[in-house]
Protein backbone atom coordinates (compact mmCIF):
# COMPACT_ATOMS: atom_id res chain seq x y z
CA UNK A 1 0.00 0.00 0.00
CA UNK A 2 1.58 3.24 -1.09
CA UNK A 3 1.87 6.48 0.76
CA UNK A 4 -0.29 8.44 -1.70
CA UNK A 5 -3.16 6.00 -1.27
CA UNK A 6 -3.06 6.32 2.51
CA UNK A 7 -2.83 10.08 2.25
CA UNK A 8 -5.90 10.07 0.03
CA UNK A 9 -8.04 7.64 1.96
CA UNK A 10 -7.39 8.96 5.43
CA UNK A 11 -9.24 12.12 4.44
CA UNK A 12 -12.42 12.67 6.44
CA UNK A 13 -11.55 10.16 9.16
CA UNK A 14 -13.58 11.32 12.13
CA UNK A 15 -11.51 10.79 15.25
CA UNK A 16 -14.38 11.32 17.70
CA UNK A 17 -16.49 8.64 16.01
CA UNK A 18 -13.65 6.19 16.27
CA UNK A 19 -13.08 7.08 19.91
CA UNK A 20 -16.78 6.49 20.52
CA UNK A 21 -16.62 3.10 18.87
CA UNK A 22 -13.43 2.29 20.69
CA UNK A 23 -14.92 3.07 24.09
CA UNK A 24 -18.17 1.23 23.40
CA UNK A 25 -16.46 -1.84 22.01
CA UNK A 26 -14.02 -1.86 24.91
CA UNK A 27 -16.86 -1.77 27.46
CA UNK A 28 -18.74 -4.54 25.63
CA UNK A 29 -15.69 -6.72 25.26
CA UNK A 30 -14.64 -6.16 28.86
CA UNK A 31 -18.08 -7.10 30.20
CA UNK A 32 -18.11 -10.28 28.13
CA UNK A 33 -14.61 -11.33 29.13
CA UNK A 34 -15.03 -10.43 32.79
CA UNK A 35 -18.33 -12.27 33.15
CA UNK A 36 -16.85 -15.42 31.62
CA UNK A 37 -13.75 -15.20 33.79
CA UNK A 38 -15.71 -14.40 36.94
CA UNK A 39 -17.97 -17.37 36.32
CA UNK A 40 -14.97 -19.65 35.84
CA UNK A 41 -13.35 -18.30 39.00
CA UNK A 42 -16.38 -18.40 41.27
CA UNK A 43 -18.06 -21.66 40.28
CA UNK A 44 -15.42 -23.77 42.09
CA UNK A 45 -16.46 -22.08 45.34
CA UNK A 46 -19.85 -23.80 45.02
CA UNK A 47 -18.91 -26.99 43.30
CA UNK A 48 -15.59 -27.35 45.00
CA UNK A 49 -14.20 -30.82 45.00
CA UNK A 50 -12.44 -31.32 48.32
CA UNK A 51 -9.99 -33.81 46.88
CA UNK A 52 -11.03 -36.71 49.08
CA UNK A 53 -14.71 -37.10 48.46
CA UNK A 54 -15.97 -36.49 44.93
CA UNK A 55 -18.74 -34.03 44.17
CA UNK A 56 -20.95 -36.67 42.73
CA UNK A 57 -21.31 -38.39 46.11
CA UNK A 58 -24.34 -37.75 48.28
CA UNK A 59 -24.59 -38.79 51.90
CA UNK A 60 -28.01 -40.08 52.96
CA UNK A 61 -29.40 -40.68 56.41
CA UNK A 62 -32.89 -41.23 57.81
CA UNK A 63 -34.75 -38.25 59.13
CA UNK A 64 -34.91 -38.33 62.90
CA UNK A 65 -38.12 -36.93 64.32
CA UNK A 66 -39.44 -36.76 67.89
CA UNK A 67 -41.98 -39.46 67.03
CA UNK A 68 -39.48 -41.82 65.49
CA UNK A 69 -37.16 -41.48 68.48
CA UNK A 70 -39.98 -42.20 70.90
CA UNK A 71 -41.21 -45.17 68.93
CA UNK A 72 -37.69 -46.47 68.62
CA UNK A 73 -37.91 -46.78 64.84
CA UNK A 74 -34.75 -47.97 63.22
CA UNK A 75 -32.53 -45.16 62.10
CA UNK A 76 -30.43 -47.59 60.11
CA UNK A 77 -30.98 -48.67 56.53
CA UNK A 78 -32.25 -52.15 55.81
CA UNK A 79 -30.96 -54.19 52.91
CA UNK A 80 -34.25 -53.60 50.99
CA UNK A 81 -33.88 -49.89 51.38
CA UNK A 82 -30.30 -50.02 50.15
CA UNK A 83 -31.36 -52.08 47.13
CA UNK A 84 -34.13 -49.57 46.45
CA UNK A 85 -31.65 -46.70 46.40
CA UNK A 86 -29.23 -48.66 44.24
CA UNK A 87 -32.00 -49.33 41.70
CA UNK A 88 -32.77 -45.64 41.09
CA UNK A 89 -31.69 -44.44 37.67
CA UNK A 90 -29.62 -41.55 39.05
CA UNK A 91 -27.60 -43.92 41.25
CA UNK A 92 -24.23 -45.22 40.14
CA UNK A 93 -23.34 -47.13 43.29
CA UNK A 94 -24.10 -47.20 46.99
CA UNK A 95 -21.65 -47.59 49.85
CA UNK A 96 -22.37 -48.08 53.57
CA UNK A 97 -20.98 -46.14 56.44
CA UNK A 98 -19.72 -48.49 59.09
CA UNK A 99 -19.50 -47.08 62.61
CA UNK A 100 -17.09 -48.21 65.29
CA UNK A 101 -18.82 -50.46 67.85
CA UNK A 102 -16.35 -49.76 70.66
CA UNK A 103 -15.17 -46.77 72.69
CA UNK A 104 -12.58 -44.46 71.23
CA UNK A 105 -10.48 -42.00 73.19
CA UNK A 106 -8.07 -39.83 71.27
CA UNK A 107 -5.53 -37.41 72.72
CA UNK A 108 -3.23 -34.95 71.14
CA UNK A 109 0.01 -33.64 72.52
CA UNK A 110 1.62 -30.44 71.37
CA UNK A 111 4.69 -29.86 73.50
CA UNK A 112 3.51 -29.44 77.08
CA UNK A 113 -0.05 -28.87 75.94
CA UNK A 114 -2.36 -31.75 75.43
CA UNK A 115 -5.99 -32.54 75.30
CA UNK A 116 -8.08 -35.54 74.59
CA UNK A 117 -11.65 -36.51 73.88
CA UNK A 118 -14.00 -39.42 73.50
CA UNK A 119 -14.91 -39.92 69.89
CA UNK A 120 -15.98 -42.41 67.26
CA UNK A 121 -14.85 -43.63 63.88
CA UNK A 122 -16.68 -44.33 60.67
CA UNK A 123 -15.58 -45.82 57.41
CA UNK A 124 -16.86 -46.00 53.86
CA UNK A 125 -15.74 -48.40 51.13
CA UNK A 126 -12.20 -47.44 50.12
CA UNK A 127 -13.05 -46.83 46.47
CA UNK A 128 -15.27 -43.88 47.53
CA UNK A 129 -12.25 -42.06 48.90
CA UNK A 130 -10.09 -40.37 46.30
CA UNK A 131 -6.70 -40.75 47.83
CA UNK A 132 -3.56 -42.74 47.26
CA UNK A 133 -4.42 -46.35 48.32
CA UNK A 134 -0.91 -46.64 49.82
CA UNK A 135 -1.87 -44.00 52.40
CA UNK A 136 -5.48 -44.99 52.88
CA UNK A 137 -4.91 -48.35 54.33
CA UNK A 138 -4.21 -50.01 57.65
CA UNK A 139 -2.29 -53.13 58.40
CA UNK A 140 -2.43 -54.40 61.95
CA UNK A 141 1.35 -54.43 62.32
CA UNK A 142 1.90 -50.77 61.37
CA UNK A 143 -0.23 -49.39 64.20
CA UNK A 144 -0.61 -46.00 62.53
CA UNK A 145 -4.19 -45.22 61.53
CA UNK A 146 -4.82 -42.72 58.73
CA UNK A 147 -7.69 -40.38 59.58
CA UNK A 148 -9.71 -37.83 57.63
CA UNK A 149 -11.28 -35.05 59.72
CA UNK A 150 -14.08 -32.67 58.78
CA UNK A 151 -12.60 -29.37 57.74
CA UNK A 152 -15.05 -27.62 60.06
CA UNK A 153 -13.29 -29.17 63.10
CA UNK A 154 -10.12 -27.31 62.24
CA UNK A 155 -12.12 -24.11 61.75
CA UNK A 156 -13.79 -24.56 65.12
CA UNK A 157 -10.40 -25.07 66.75
CA UNK A 158 -8.68 -22.19 64.96
CA UNK A 159 -11.40 -19.59 65.18
CA UNK A 160 -13.06 -20.59 68.41
CA UNK A 161 -10.93 -22.60 70.75
CA UNK A 162 -7.39 -21.46 69.91
CA UNK A 163 -8.45 -17.83 69.91
CA UNK A 164 -10.08 -17.95 73.33
CA UNK A 165 -7.32 -20.06 74.92
CA UNK A 166 -4.39 -18.18 73.35
CA UNK A 167 -3.30 -21.36 71.63
CA UNK A 168 -1.44 -21.38 68.33
CA UNK A 169 -3.48 -21.69 65.18
CA UNK A 170 -2.91 -24.80 63.13
CA UNK A 171 -2.78 -25.26 59.40
CA UNK A 172 -3.85 -28.48 57.73
CA UNK A 173 -0.22 -29.35 57.12
CA UNK A 174 0.76 -28.91 60.76
CA UNK A 175 -2.12 -31.05 62.00
CA UNK A 176 -0.88 -33.81 59.70
CA UNK A 177 2.45 -33.77 61.53
CA UNK A 178 1.03 -34.08 65.05
CA UNK A 179 0.76 -37.69 66.22
CA UNK A 180 -2.59 -38.69 67.68
CA UNK A 181 -2.69 -41.05 70.55
CA UNK A 182 -5.67 -43.39 70.21
CA UNK A 183 -7.04 -45.81 72.76
CA UNK A 184 -9.74 -48.30 71.77
CA UNK A 185 -11.73 -50.21 74.37
CA UNK A 186 -14.31 -52.98 73.95
CA UNK A 187 -14.89 -56.60 74.46
CA UNK A 188 -12.77 -56.36 77.60
CA UNK A 189 -9.69 -55.38 75.67
CA UNK A 190 -7.79 -52.20 75.05
CA UNK A 191 -5.68 -51.28 72.00
CA UNK A 192 -3.24 -48.34 71.90
CA UNK A 193 -2.53 -47.02 68.46
CA UNK A 194 -1.05 -44.00 66.79
CA UNK A 195 -3.20 -41.99 64.39
CA UNK A 196 -2.24 -39.58 61.69
CA UNK A 197 -4.50 -37.00 60.10
CA UNK A 198 -3.90 -37.35 56.38
CA UNK A 199 -6.53 -34.93 55.15
CA UNK A 200 -9.58 -32.81 55.72
CA UNK A 201 -12.91 -33.01 53.98
CA UNK A 202 -15.53 -30.31 53.80
CA UNK A 203 -18.04 -32.80 52.45
CA UNK A 204 -17.92 -35.52 55.09
CA UNK A 205 -19.24 -34.78 58.53
CA UNK A 206 -17.52 -37.62 60.28
CA UNK A 207 -14.17 -38.92 61.42
CA UNK A 208 -13.18 -41.27 58.65
CA UNK A 209 -10.81 -44.20 58.88
CA UNK A 210 -9.97 -46.85 56.27
CA UNK A 211 -12.45 -49.67 55.83
CA UNK A 212 -9.84 -52.35 56.50
CA UNK A 213 -9.03 -50.75 59.85
CA UNK A 214 -12.74 -50.68 60.75
CA UNK A 215 -13.22 -54.33 59.82
CA UNK A 216 -10.20 -55.33 61.85
CA UNK A 217 -11.02 -53.20 64.93
CA UNK A 218 -14.72 -54.17 65.04
CA UNK A 219 -13.77 -57.81 64.80
CA UNK A 220 -11.25 -57.39 67.61
CA UNK A 221 -13.19 -55.21 69.99
CA UNK A 222 -16.87 -55.79 69.21
CA UNK A 223 -17.32 -59.14 67.57
CA UNK A 224 -20.88 -59.86 66.49
CA UNK A 225 -22.19 -56.33 67.06
CA UNK A 226 -24.89 -54.96 64.78
CA UNK A 227 -23.33 -52.97 61.97
CA UNK A 228 -26.44 -51.91 60.03
CA UNK A 229 -25.52 -48.58 58.47
CA UNK A 230 -27.20 -45.37 59.57
CA UNK A 231 -25.69 -43.45 56.71
CA UNK A 232 -25.09 -44.30 53.08
CA UNK A 233 -22.76 -42.77 50.56
CA UNK A 234 -24.32 -42.72 47.10
CA UNK A 235 -22.56 -41.89 43.87
CA UNK A 236 -24.95 -40.24 41.41
CA UNK A 237 -24.59 -39.27 37.79
CA UNK A 238 -25.64 -35.65 38.30
CA UNK A 239 -25.96 -34.23 41.80
CA UNK A 240 -28.20 -31.37 40.60
CA UNK A 241 -30.81 -33.77 39.20
CA UNK A 242 -34.33 -32.90 40.47
CA UNK A 243 -35.27 -36.55 40.69
CA UNK A 244 -32.85 -37.01 43.58
CA UNK A 245 -34.53 -34.36 45.72
CA UNK A 246 -37.98 -35.86 44.98
CA UNK A 247 -36.82 -39.36 45.82
CA UNK A 248 -35.26 -38.27 49.10
CA UNK A 249 -38.40 -36.38 50.17
CA UNK A 250 -40.59 -39.27 49.15
CA UNK A 251 -38.70 -41.84 51.21
CA UNK A 252 -38.25 -39.57 54.22
CA UNK A 253 -34.48 -39.51 53.97
CA UNK A 254 -32.15 -36.62 54.57
CA UNK A 255 -29.23 -35.47 52.56
CA UNK A 256 -26.37 -34.47 54.73
CA UNK A 257 -24.46 -32.03 52.66
CA UNK A 258 -25.32 -29.07 50.57
CA UNK A 259 -24.94 -30.56 47.13
CA UNK A 260 -28.41 -29.53 46.02
CA UNK A 261 -27.87 -26.10 47.45
CA UNK A 262 -24.62 -25.81 45.52
CA UNK A 263 -26.42 -26.99 42.41
CA UNK A 264 -29.03 -24.28 42.82
CA UNK A 265 -26.37 -21.64 43.48
CA UNK A 266 -24.45 -22.71 40.41
CA UNK A 267 -27.62 -22.54 38.36
CA UNK A 268 -28.35 -19.08 39.70
CA UNK A 269 -24.78 -17.99 38.97
CA UNK A 270 -25.17 -19.32 35.45
CA UNK A 271 -28.29 -17.24 34.91
CA UNK A 272 -26.69 -14.09 36.27
CA UNK A 273 -23.56 -14.65 34.21
CA UNK A 274 -25.71 -15.34 31.17
CA UNK A 275 -27.60 -12.06 31.59
CA UNK A 276 -24.38 -10.07 32.09
CA UNK A 277 -22.83 -11.84 29.12
CA UNK A 278 -25.83 -10.99 26.97
CA UNK A 279 -25.60 -7.32 27.99
CA UNK A 280 -21.89 -7.34 27.11
CA UNK A 281 -22.58 -8.95 23.75
CA UNK A 282 -25.36 -6.46 23.07
CA UNK A 283 -22.99 -3.56 23.76
CA UNK A 284 -20.41 -5.24 21.51
CA UNK A 285 -22.96 -5.58 18.71
CA UNK A 286 -24.06 -1.95 19.10
CA UNK A 287 -20.45 -0.77 19.05
CA UNK A 288 -19.93 -2.83 15.91
CA UNK A 289 -22.78 -0.84 14.36
CA UNK A 290 -21.18 2.42 15.43
CA UNK A 291 -17.97 1.33 13.72
CA UNK A 292 -19.82 0.27 10.60
CA UNK A 293 -21.74 3.53 10.47
CA UNK A 294 -18.62 5.63 10.79
CA UNK A 295 -16.82 3.56 8.17
CA UNK A 296 -19.82 3.89 5.84
CA UNK A 297 -19.84 7.63 6.44
CA UNK A 298 -16.14 7.75 5.71
CA UNK A 299 -16.59 5.79 2.50
CA UNK A 300 -19.51 8.04 1.56
CA UNK A 301 -17.42 11.16 2.03
CA UNK A 302 -14.62 9.61 0.00
CA UNK A 303 -16.88 8.20 -2.73
CA UNK A 304 -15.50 10.42 -5.49
CA UNK A 305 -11.92 9.58 -4.59
CA UNK A 306 -12.67 5.88 -4.44
CA UNK A 307 -14.46 6.04 -7.78
CA UNK A 308 -11.52 7.83 -9.37
CA UNK A 309 -9.09 5.29 -7.97
CA UNK A 310 -11.18 2.47 -9.39
CA UNK A 311 -11.33 4.20 -12.79
CA UNK A 312 -7.55 4.59 -13.04
CA UNK A 313 -7.03 0.90 -12.41
CA UNK A 314 -7.23 0.25 -8.65
CA UNK A 315 -9.07 -2.93 -7.73
CA UNK A 316 -11.93 -2.83 -5.20
CA UNK A 317 -9.84 -5.10 -2.95
CA UNK A 318 -6.97 -2.65 -2.98
CA UNK A 319 -8.98 0.42 -2.08
CA UNK A 320 -10.87 -1.54 0.59
CA UNK A 321 -7.65 -2.66 2.25
CA UNK A 322 -6.74 0.56 4.10
CA UNK A 323 -10.22 0.75 5.67
CA UNK A 324 -10.15 -2.93 6.54
CA UNK A 325 -6.74 -2.58 8.16
CA UNK A 326 -7.96 0.45 10.07
CA UNK A 327 -10.93 -1.40 11.56
CA UNK A 328 -8.90 -4.52 12.29
CA UNK A 329 -6.27 -2.43 14.09
CA UNK A 330 -8.92 -0.73 16.19
CA UNK A 331 -10.55 -4.08 16.99
CA UNK A 332 -7.22 -5.60 17.92
CA UNK A 333 -6.31 -2.69 20.16
CA UNK A 334 -9.67 -3.11 21.90
CA UNK A 335 -8.96 -6.82 22.41
CA UNK A 336 -5.51 -6.19 23.87
CA UNK A 337 -6.68 -3.45 26.23
CA UNK A 338 -9.73 -5.49 27.28
CA UNK A 339 -7.53 -8.46 28.17
CA UNK A 340 -5.18 -6.17 30.11
CA UNK A 341 -8.09 -4.67 32.05
CA UNK A 342 -9.54 -8.14 32.63
CA UNK A 343 -6.29 -9.29 34.23
CA UNK A 344 -6.28 -6.25 36.50
CA UNK A 345 -9.94 -6.61 37.53
CA UNK A 346 -9.37 -10.30 38.13
CA UNK A 347 -6.38 -9.71 40.37
CA UNK A 348 -8.61 -7.43 42.46
CA UNK A 349 -11.46 -9.86 43.02
CA UNK A 350 -9.24 -12.93 43.26
CA UNK A 351 -7.53 -11.43 46.31
CA UNK A 352 -10.94 -11.14 47.93
CA UNK A 353 -11.92 -14.66 46.91
CA UNK A 354 -8.71 -16.16 48.20
CA UNK A 355 -9.08 -14.46 51.54
CA UNK A 356 -12.53 -16.06 51.87
CA UNK A 357 -11.85 -19.44 50.26
CA UNK A 358 -8.12 -20.09 50.51
CA UNK A 359 -8.43 -23.62 49.17
CA UNK A 360 -9.95 -22.77 45.78
CA UNK A 361 -7.74 -23.26 42.81
CA UNK A 362 -7.06 -20.64 40.20
CA UNK A 363 -9.24 -21.16 37.13
CA UNK A 364 -7.79 -20.91 33.66
CA UNK A 365 -7.93 -17.59 31.85
CA UNK A 366 -7.79 -19.32 28.47
CA UNK A 367 -11.57 -19.58 27.87
CA UNK A 368 -12.05 -15.83 28.39
CA UNK A 369 -9.15 -14.99 26.08
CA UNK A 370 -10.39 -17.43 23.44
CA UNK A 371 -13.81 -15.83 23.64
CA UNK A 372 -12.22 -12.38 23.21
CA UNK A 373 -10.31 -13.66 20.19
CA UNK A 374 -13.50 -15.14 18.77
CA UNK A 375 -15.31 -11.81 19.11
CA UNK A 376 -12.33 -10.05 17.51
CA UNK A 377 -12.29 -12.48 14.57
CA UNK A 378 -16.06 -12.41 14.01
CA UNK A 379 -16.33 -8.62 14.25
CA UNK A 380 -13.30 -8.17 11.97
CA UNK A 381 -14.67 -10.57 9.37
CA UNK A 382 -17.99 -8.72 9.37
CA UNK A 383 -16.13 -5.42 9.01
CA UNK A 384 -14.03 -6.72 6.13
CA UNK A 385 -17.07 -8.02 4.28
CA UNK A 386 -19.14 -4.88 4.91
CA UNK A 387 -16.38 -2.55 3.68
CA UNK A 388 -15.81 -4.63 0.58
CA UNK A 389 -19.54 -4.63 -0.21
CA UNK A 390 -19.66 -0.84 0.09
CA UNK A 391 -16.70 -0.46 -2.26
CA UNK A 392 -18.35 -2.87 -4.69
CA UNK A 393 -21.41 -0.61 -4.67
CA UNK A 394 -19.17 2.31 -5.61
CA UNK A 395 -17.72 0.19 -8.42
CA UNK A 396 -21.24 -0.36 -9.69
CA UNK A 397 -22.10 3.36 -9.27
CA UNK A 398 -24.89 2.56 -6.87
CA UNK A 399 -23.54 4.96 -4.28
Amino acid sequence: MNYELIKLLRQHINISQFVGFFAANLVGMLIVLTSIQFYKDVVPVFTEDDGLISNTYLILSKRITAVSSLLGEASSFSQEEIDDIASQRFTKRVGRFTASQYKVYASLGVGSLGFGTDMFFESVPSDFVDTDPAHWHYDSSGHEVPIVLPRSYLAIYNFGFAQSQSLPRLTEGVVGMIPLDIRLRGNGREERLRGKVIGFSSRLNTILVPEDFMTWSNAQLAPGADTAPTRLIVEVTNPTDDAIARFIDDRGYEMENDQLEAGRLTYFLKIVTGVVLAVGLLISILSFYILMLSVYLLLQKNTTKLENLLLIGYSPARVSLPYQLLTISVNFLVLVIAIGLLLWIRSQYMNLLWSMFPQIEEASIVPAILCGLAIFVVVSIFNIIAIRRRVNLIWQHKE
Partner: protein
Amino acid sequence: MNLKLNSLRLNNVMPRVFSDREKDLQSDIWLHDVEFQRGKYYLVEAASGTGKSSLCAYLIGYRHDYKGTISFDGRDIRTLSTAEWVELRQRSLSLLFQELRLFPELTAWENIEVKNSLTRFKDEKTISRWFEAFGIADKKEIKCGRMSFGQQQRVAMIRALVQPFSFLLVDEPISHLDEANAHTMAEIMQEEARAQGAGIIVTSIGKHMEMNYDVTFTM
Protein backbone atom coordinates in the same frame (compact mmCIF):
# COMPACT_ATOMS: atom_id res chain seq x y z
CA MET B 1 -8.74 -11.27 -21.72
CA ASN B 2 -5.57 -10.70 -23.70
CA LEU B 3 -3.80 -7.58 -22.40
CA LYS B 4 -2.82 -6.50 -25.93
CA LEU B 5 -6.13 -5.37 -27.39
CA ASN B 6 -6.29 -5.27 -31.18
CA SER B 7 -9.73 -3.90 -31.77
CA LEU B 8 -12.55 -2.01 -30.08
CA ARG B 9 -15.79 -2.56 -31.92
CA LEU B 10 -19.14 -0.81 -31.59
CA ASN B 11 -22.02 -2.68 -33.17
CA ASN B 12 -25.28 -0.77 -33.46
CA VAL B 13 -24.50 1.04 -30.22
CA MET B 14 -26.58 3.96 -28.98
CA PRO B 15 -26.91 5.59 -25.57
CA ARG B 16 -30.30 4.70 -24.07
CA VAL B 17 -31.10 8.37 -23.50
CA PHE B 18 -31.15 8.86 -27.27
CA SER B 19 -33.96 6.36 -27.83
CA ASP B 20 -36.58 9.05 -28.46
CA ARG B 21 -34.57 10.63 -31.28
CA GLU B 22 -33.37 7.41 -32.80
CA LYS B 23 -34.81 8.21 -36.24
CA ASP B 24 -33.16 11.54 -36.81
CA LEU B 25 -29.84 10.68 -35.20
CA GLN B 26 -27.04 11.89 -37.52
CA SER B 27 -23.87 10.15 -36.40
CA ASP B 28 -20.96 8.14 -37.80
CA ILE B 29 -20.67 6.28 -34.51
CA TRP B 30 -24.10 5.59 -32.99
CA LEU B 31 -26.10 2.82 -34.64
CA HIS B 32 -23.23 1.98 -36.95
CA ASP B 33 -20.67 -0.77 -37.07
CA VAL B 34 -17.45 0.98 -36.05
CA GLU B 35 -14.08 -0.56 -35.33
CA PHE B 36 -11.08 1.13 -33.72
CA GLN B 37 -7.84 -0.70 -34.51
CA ARG B 38 -4.59 -0.76 -32.62
CA GLY B 39 -1.86 1.38 -34.17
CA LYS B 40 -4.30 3.80 -35.83
CA TYR B 41 -5.24 7.34 -34.79
CA TYR B 42 -8.88 8.43 -34.69
CA LEU B 43 -10.52 11.80 -34.27
CA VAL B 44 -14.11 11.91 -33.06
CA GLU B 45 -15.57 15.35 -33.66
CA ALA B 46 -18.72 16.16 -31.86
CA ALA B 47 -21.09 18.91 -30.91
CA SER B 48 -22.11 19.24 -27.28
CA GLY B 49 -24.61 16.65 -26.11
CA THR B 50 -23.93 14.14 -28.84
CA GLY B 51 -22.61 11.55 -26.42
CA LYS B 52 -18.86 11.94 -26.75
CA SER B 53 -18.14 11.52 -23.05
CA SER B 54 -20.67 8.68 -22.91
CA LEU B 55 -18.59 6.87 -25.52
CA CYS B 56 -15.49 7.22 -23.33
CA ALA B 57 -17.43 6.06 -20.26
CA TYR B 58 -18.67 2.97 -22.13
CA LEU B 59 -15.19 2.08 -23.37
CA ILE B 60 -13.60 2.35 -19.91
CA GLY B 61 -16.40 0.29 -18.36
CA TYR B 62 -17.73 3.09 -16.20
CA ARG B 63 -21.22 3.11 -17.68
CA HIS B 64 -23.27 0.47 -19.40
CA ASP B 65 -26.42 2.41 -20.32
CA TYR B 66 -26.35 1.70 -24.03
CA LYS B 67 -28.11 -0.47 -26.56
CA GLY B 68 -26.14 -2.62 -29.00
CA THR B 69 -22.85 -4.39 -28.43
CA ILE B 70 -19.37 -3.13 -27.65
CA SER B 71 -16.69 -5.79 -27.97
CA PHE B 72 -12.95 -5.89 -27.31
CA ASP B 73 -11.27 -8.38 -29.64
CA GLY B 74 -14.66 -9.98 -30.22
CA ARG B 75 -15.60 -10.25 -26.53
CA ASP B 76 -18.77 -8.48 -25.43
CA ILE B 77 -17.59 -6.11 -22.70
CA ARG B 78 -20.78 -6.62 -20.72
CA THR B 79 -19.39 -10.05 -19.85
CA LEU B 80 -16.11 -8.76 -18.40
CA SER B 81 -15.53 -9.41 -14.71
CA THR B 82 -14.38 -6.83 -12.16
CA ALA B 83 -10.89 -8.34 -12.19
CA GLU B 84 -10.75 -8.16 -15.99
CA TRP B 85 -11.78 -4.50 -15.98
CA VAL B 86 -9.11 -3.75 -13.37
CA GLU B 87 -6.50 -5.42 -15.58
CA LEU B 88 -7.71 -3.56 -18.68
CA ARG B 89 -7.61 -0.21 -16.88
CA GLN B 90 -4.11 -0.93 -15.62
CA ARG B 91 -2.58 -2.30 -18.80
CA SER B 92 -4.71 -1.99 -21.93
CA LEU B 93 -6.85 1.13 -21.90
CA SER B 94 -5.81 4.56 -20.75
CA LEU B 95 -8.28 7.41 -20.57
CA LEU B 96 -7.66 11.11 -20.13
CA PHE B 97 -10.99 12.13 -18.62
CA GLN B 98 -12.61 15.32 -19.77
CA GLU B 99 -13.24 16.11 -16.08
CA LEU B 100 -9.63 14.97 -15.39
CA ARG B 101 -10.48 13.09 -12.14
CA LEU B 102 -7.29 14.20 -10.42
CA PHE B 103 -7.03 14.23 -6.62
CA PRO B 104 -7.03 17.89 -5.53
CA GLU B 105 -5.50 17.14 -2.10
CA LEU B 106 -2.44 15.48 -3.64
CA THR B 107 0.43 17.29 -5.33
CA ALA B 108 0.93 16.97 -9.09
CA TRP B 109 3.76 14.50 -8.50
CA GLU B 110 1.72 12.42 -6.04
CA ASN B 111 -1.15 12.28 -8.53
CA ILE B 112 1.21 10.66 -11.02
CA GLU B 113 2.61 8.34 -8.34
CA VAL B 114 -0.85 7.05 -7.43
CA LYS B 115 -1.17 5.78 -10.98
CA ASN B 116 2.45 4.82 -11.67
CA SER B 117 2.69 2.74 -8.49
CA LEU B 118 0.21 0.27 -9.99
CA THR B 119 2.54 -0.88 -12.77
CA ARG B 120 5.82 1.06 -12.25
CA PHE B 121 5.70 1.50 -15.99
CA LYS B 122 7.65 4.77 -16.14
CA ASP B 123 10.70 5.82 -14.19
CA GLU B 124 11.10 9.13 -12.37
CA LYS B 125 13.39 10.49 -15.09
CA THR B 126 10.83 10.09 -17.85
CA ILE B 127 8.08 11.61 -15.73
CA SER B 128 10.30 14.55 -14.81
CA ARG B 129 11.12 15.04 -18.49
CA TRP B 130 7.41 15.28 -19.31
CA PHE B 131 6.81 17.77 -16.50
CA GLU B 132 9.51 19.90 -18.08
CA ALA B 133 8.24 19.45 -21.63
CA PHE B 134 4.80 20.64 -20.51
CA GLY B 135 6.30 23.60 -18.68
CA ILE B 136 5.00 22.55 -15.24
CA ALA B 137 8.28 21.30 -13.72
CA ASP B 138 7.94 23.93 -10.98
CA LYS B 139 4.43 22.66 -10.10
CA LYS B 140 5.44 19.13 -9.07
CA GLU B 141 4.99 19.80 -5.37
CA ILE B 142 1.90 21.97 -5.75
CA LYS B 143 -1.46 20.48 -4.82
CA CYS B 144 -3.58 19.90 -7.91
CA GLY B 145 -6.49 21.70 -6.28
CA ARG B 146 -4.43 24.91 -6.47
CA MET B 147 -3.49 24.62 -10.13
CA SER B 148 -5.27 26.10 -13.16
CA PHE B 149 -7.40 23.80 -15.29
CA GLY B 150 -4.86 24.01 -18.12
CA GLN B 151 -2.06 22.96 -15.80
CA GLN B 152 -4.22 20.16 -14.43
CA GLN B 153 -4.94 18.97 -17.98
CA ARG B 154 -1.22 18.48 -18.49
CA VAL B 155 -0.86 16.58 -15.19
CA ALA B 156 -3.79 14.36 -16.22
CA MET B 157 -2.10 13.77 -19.59
CA ILE B 158 1.08 12.59 -17.85
CA ARG B 159 -1.00 10.35 -15.63
CA ALA B 160 -2.65 8.80 -18.68
CA LEU B 161 0.79 8.00 -20.09
CA VAL B 162 2.34 6.22 -17.07
CA GLN B 163 0.74 2.87 -17.90
CA PRO B 164 0.99 0.34 -20.68
CA PHE B 165 -1.89 0.66 -23.13
CA SER B 166 -3.21 -0.67 -26.43
CA PHE B 167 -5.55 2.28 -26.81
CA LEU B 168 -5.24 5.79 -25.47
CA LEU B 169 -8.55 7.64 -25.19
CA VAL B 170 -8.28 11.37 -24.73
CA ASP B 171 -11.49 13.27 -24.10
CA GLU B 172 -11.10 16.92 -25.14
CA PRO B 173 -7.47 17.05 -24.08
CA ILE B 174 -6.59 20.57 -25.20
CA SER B 175 -9.69 22.60 -24.28
CA HIS B 176 -7.60 24.82 -21.99
CA LEU B 177 -4.19 24.59 -23.64
CA ASP B 178 -2.37 27.03 -25.93
CA GLU B 179 -1.05 26.02 -29.39
CA ALA B 180 2.44 25.24 -28.14
CA ASN B 181 1.30 22.99 -25.31
CA ALA B 182 -1.26 21.29 -27.56
CA HIS B 183 1.52 20.58 -30.00
CA THR B 184 3.81 19.18 -27.28
CA MET B 185 0.99 16.96 -26.03
CA ALA B 186 0.34 15.58 -29.52
CA GLU B 187 4.06 14.90 -29.96
CA ILE B 188 4.43 13.03 -26.67
CA MET B 189 1.22 11.06 -27.18
CA GLN B 190 2.26 9.91 -30.62
CA GLU B 191 5.73 9.07 -29.41
CA GLU B 192 4.29 6.86 -26.64
CA ALA B 193 1.68 5.29 -28.94
CA ARG B 194 4.35 4.45 -31.48
CA ALA B 195 6.56 2.91 -28.85
CA GLN B 196 3.70 0.69 -27.64
CA GLY B 197 2.10 0.12 -31.05
CA ALA B 198 -1.07 1.60 -29.61
CA GLY B 199 -4.09 3.30 -31.12
CA ILE B 200 -5.25 6.80 -30.13
CA ILE B 201 -8.84 8.05 -30.00
CA VAL B 202 -9.15 11.81 -29.59
CA THR B 203 -12.50 13.53 -29.07
CA SER B 204 -13.01 17.18 -29.68
CA ILE B 205 -15.83 19.69 -29.76
CA GLY B 206 -13.92 22.68 -31.05
CA LYS B 207 -10.28 23.03 -31.80
CA HIS B 208 -8.68 19.68 -32.25
CA MET B 209 -5.24 18.35 -31.74
CA GLU B 210 -3.06 18.43 -34.87
CA MET B 211 -2.16 14.86 -35.68
CA ASN B 212 -2.11 12.56 -38.70
CA TYR B 213 -5.50 10.92 -38.09
CA ASP B 214 -6.27 7.77 -40.01
CA VAL B 215 -10.03 8.20 -39.62
CA THR B 216 -12.21 11.10 -38.55
CA PHE B 217 -15.74 10.48 -37.29
CA THR B 218 -18.46 13.00 -36.72
CA MET B 219 -20.85 12.18 -33.93
